[in-house]
């Protein structure tokens, strides 16, 4: 069988901005979406205002707008990263138990999370490096991992040291089991699952090259 996977080996890996735009393209119009703290937040900049996508922040709001600046800063209105944000028409506020009931109950269409590691069967590790000196802090990570119909990961495929972050089994403490639907990285897009990893597209490398570097089987 010939591959239908777009292999864009001759272009460089995606920048963070390109990756954010790539993910934004896959979020259906009209979705309710939670963008995790850190890099996933940048996806918001690439969502079409016409798409009617509503952003959730787990500290109790739907209809979150862009970050607030200048006089618009209101310390009673922040996102989950404690960054001041704004409110869009049609927003709604609710308390923490209601907000996490919404997540746990599977009402969000999409959430996008950062990750330290994702396993070939979709386990997620994104809250703790396992360093015994680290002070443990989970926040809403575990709730988000079960908290949407589709849990997407946005991460670099390799650490600065070159270690793979898409792994046969997570070595870091888990955030959630078999919860990741799709992994968007600078080098490619992957779908983990019970039958192993399917590769959907690559950037700056061929499927064969990634298979070698990751040491993980990649289905087309």
């Amino acid at each position: 069988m010939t591959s239908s996977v777009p292999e864009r080996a001759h272009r460089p890996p995606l920048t963070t901005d390109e990756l954010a735009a790539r993910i934004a393209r896959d979020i259906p119009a009209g979705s309710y979406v939670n963008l995790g703290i850190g890099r996933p937040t940048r996806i918001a900049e690439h969502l079409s205002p016409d798409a009617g996508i509503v952003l959730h922040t787990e500290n109790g709001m739907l209809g979150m707008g862009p970050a607030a600046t200048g006089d618009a800063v209101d310390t009673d209105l922040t996102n989950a990263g404690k960054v001041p944000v704004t409110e869009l028409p049609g927003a709604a506020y609710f308390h923490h138990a209601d907000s996490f009931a919404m997540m746990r109950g599977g009402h969000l269409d999409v959430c996008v999370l950062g990750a330290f590691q994702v396993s070939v069967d979709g386990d997620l590790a994104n809250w703790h490096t396992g360093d015994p000196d680290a002070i443990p802090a989970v926040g809403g990570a575990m709730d988000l991992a079960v908290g949407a119909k589709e849990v997407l990961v946005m991460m670099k495929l390799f650490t600065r040291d070159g270690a793979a972050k898409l792994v046969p089994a997570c070595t870091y403490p888990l955030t959630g089991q078999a919860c990741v639907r799709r992994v968007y990285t600078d080098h490619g897009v992957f779908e983990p699952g019970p039958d192993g990893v399917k590769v959907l597209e690559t950037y700056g490398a061929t499927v064969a090259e990634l298979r070698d570097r990751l040491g993980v089987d990649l289905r087309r």
Partner: protein
Amino acid sequence: MTTTIAATTDEAVAGVEDGSTVLVGGFGLAGMPFDLIDALIRQGARDLTVVSNNAGNGDVGLAALLKAGRVRKVICSFPRQSDSYVFDELYRAGRVELEVVPQGTLAERMRAGGAGIGGFYSPVGVGTPLAAGKETREIDGRTYVLEFPITGDVALISAHRADTLGNLVYRKTARNFGPVMATAAATVVAQVTEIVEPGTIDPETVVTPGIFVDRLVRAEARRLTVEGARR
């Protein structure tokens, strides 16, 4: 019973006993009951277990309570922040215990405590270190972990406006844990920026009915800086 209106924050937190479990509202600085915490520091209760989302920012609020050495244990979801140096030092010195709970489980355990639920099965944390040693159960093909309620002897929360019956409304995402904690403590103390007559707050918009609020006190709104909010 009827909500009482305290003249001062000191009166509002009077009687908190050593060894109490204190639920403290807020998510970062938003909704943090600064004035009540300052009063609690003056009041002097020690050996406290504090339940809150974070473990204090900078030198104010919860961080000040921790720094004063009044806290034996913190139950929270996210102690580690860029300026949580007070907690970090105490923790590394072994001078404060820590129980980390996923944020939604923290909220739901207090909700259960306030709602008379003896325990509940949550899908959150299954297969992770935070569920280690906890009972699990398969229900309809999915694995859940059994979680038990959290209740407090006292809750300290911050709301926006109250009427004299103790009905509360909040402001934006400063609502966060306040309404849940108000249901889950034996004595609930709320600081608000304004206290109005009954009938002023539209009954359709009340978030925390007065039945949950034991003591009210008025405190000036603080103008926090962007930096304060971001930390």
